[in-house]
């Protein structure tokens, strides 16, 4: 789960990272008040979770409170990669002498929380990694003892920070580390970390991505979830305990297991169709979960056929088939359905499905072909 810039900065500030105080606003008047309180030139920044907001016109300077209100009026309501801006952050405009990149990330390959630092701040780190990899320091931390003082010093020297800022930098990196560990993050990033013309160290932008698996022990962070930026169907799916990601195609997919769900999408594509979604219904495929999955898939008006692929394994195929038939009966919109059930009593399952006029398939390839054909014909 990604946190908005202003939420990320709040967390970092609590852990001693120097962050310029800012205020959020949801309308131009609020932006004016915030700019008045801050005093001096401000920057008005769209609070969205998608990248590239600067290029999209979502970050603007304002010299006066009136200008801040005008800039906020331009930014609020702006569409950035399909997300409508609802909130802006108004923060003091810093005069930047030098920009750095500083992050903690879970490095899967190295199996360690890793410091990533670069004196080339303000640009995407992936870009620096491509163009100038020597400019990046990657420092894995021991899983049991974590960030040590010699490592803090090493990062500071690598960045070539002025001697008088080393203490502030140490507090910044230690604070970033504490924020990462305490919030169970996958990523905690400051980009840019700047030295101002006045010689002050400041985190100008920040991003924290939380480990979804750890949210159960952070109800306070879970409460910060920005539902406005999520697909309503994805919110409904999460509430029903279903893993769902909306895509742009016409063939709805209902599958048990994430790997098999991805494979089913891939085979739909290979058969000449486009998947409308990723959907992992989880273990058991109980009737109420199947019904919820149907509703979520059919909520997408682009869906013209549904491919159901259940590898029952230990579960009984006939029970799954009955669940599908029952759930289908209560649907408002009917589209062709291709069902493939593997597992115990698969034979009985296909009898039940055929009796209910559902298209059955023996293999996954066959199911994908039939679903693509069904989506092409009028429902």
């Amino acid at each position, binding site marked *: 789960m990604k946190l908005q810039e202003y939420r990320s900065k709040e967390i970092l500030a609590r852990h001693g990272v120097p962050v310029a105080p800012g205020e959020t606003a949801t309308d131009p008047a609020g932006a004016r008040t915030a700019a008045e309180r801050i005093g001096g030139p401000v920057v008005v920044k769209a609070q969205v979770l998608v990248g590239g907001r600067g290029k999209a016109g979502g970050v603007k300077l304002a010299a006066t409170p009136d200008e801040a209100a005008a800039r906020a009026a331009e930014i609020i309501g702006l569409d950035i990669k399909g997300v409508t801006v609802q909130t802006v952050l108004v923060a003091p405009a810093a005069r930047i002498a030098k920009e750095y990149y500083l992050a903690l990330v879970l490095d899967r390959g190295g199996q360690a929380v890793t410091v990533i630092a670069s004196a080339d701040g303000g640009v995407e780190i992936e870009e620096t990694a491509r163009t100038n990899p020597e400019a990046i320091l990657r420092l894995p931390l021991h*899983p049991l003892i974590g960030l040590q003082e010699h490592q803090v010093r090493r990062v500071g020297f690598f960045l070539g920070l002025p001697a008088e800022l080393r203490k502030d930098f140490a507090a910044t990196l230690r604070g970033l580390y504490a924020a990462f560990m305490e919030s169970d993050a996958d990523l905690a990033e400051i980009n840019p970390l700047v030295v101002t013309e006045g010689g002050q160290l400041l985190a100008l932008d920040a991003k924290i991505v939380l480990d979804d*698996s750890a949210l159960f022990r952070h109800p306070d962070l879970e409460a910060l979830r920005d539902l406005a930026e999520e697909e309503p169907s994805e919110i409904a799916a999460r509430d029903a305990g279903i893993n769902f990601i909306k895509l742009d195609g016409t063939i709805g997919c209902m599958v048990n297991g994430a*790997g098999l769900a991805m494979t089913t999408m891939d085979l739909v594509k290979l058969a000449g169709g486009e998947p409308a979604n990723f959907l992992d219904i989880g273990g058991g495929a109980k009737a109420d979960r199947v019904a919820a999955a149907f509703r979520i898939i059919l909520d997408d008006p682009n869906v013209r056929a549904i491919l159901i692929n259940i590898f029952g394994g230990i579960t009984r195929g006939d029970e799954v088939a009955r669940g599908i038939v029952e759930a289908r009966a209560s649907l408002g919109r009917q589209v062709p359905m291709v069902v493939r059930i593997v597992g115990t009593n698969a034979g009985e399952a296909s009898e039940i499905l055929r009796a209910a006029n559902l298209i059955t398939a023996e293999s996954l390839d066959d199911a994908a072909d039939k679903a693509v054909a069904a989506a092409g014909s009028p429902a």
Partner: protein
Amino acid sequence: MSILVGRETRLLVQGITGREGEFHSRAMLEFGTKIVAGVTPGKGGQSAVDGRVPVFDTVAEAVAQTEADAACIFVPAPFAPDAMLEAADAGLPLVICITEGIPVLDMLRVHEVLRAGGTRLIGPNCPGLTSVGGAKVGIIPGDIHRPGPVGLVSRSGTLTYEVVQAMTDAGVGQTTCVGIGGDPIVGTTFIDVLEMFNGDPETEAIVLIGEIGGDEEERAAEYCAREVRKPMAAFIAGRTAPPGRRMGHAGAIISGGAGTAESKREALQAAGVRVADSPSQIPALLREMGVR
């Protein structure tokens, strides 16, 4: 011969009195797995699975009484890290953790402690493994297998079953099928299992089932090019997965343009591995490479 587990394995199940634990313990017993003990704190002295398995309060006690030499964990995510540490603390050399949704930072610590102590961990968030004709540990359906010469390693669950079923239907049997798990941090990697298959005289060919995210498949490809002379086939899930989204498994995410299915397919192909477009093609690819 098989790798990791076999007829001689003396299995202990942590969380055996839970719904999942009891259900799958029954299926394991039916397959022929020797389950010698269960552990549920506070239920020591009772028995599970219709009186067939004695239950202990602690892993240490269970090991002392039954000489268990491997643990399978069905404990809910908030308690699973402690369960893994308890198994390692009792000196068990092999721990298979089925539990899904364990926080990554917990896994980093647990993985380090187990590694340093010499306990091999498989998983978490994995279906376990089956040594065909020997023992199954975990949740892979027992009846999809057929004995034969192919070793299979996978990051997935039901996709593994799909591939195994396709192989069995085509008459291509397996030695051992290992699900290593779909999390960012897992105890046993593709390369670990490939090494074991490479050294196992009964495994004549190897199937690798990967998916988007991370660079485990690319590293495995490097290893294969260097060390493996046995015929290999692979399938990578997620060619149609959008970047930046977690596809169900915590580890299945394309980030910063890395971890795509194409990159993995290319790396494996360059290493001489035959890569299938569909799971159903795997048996034919194996046959073409001379697998009986």
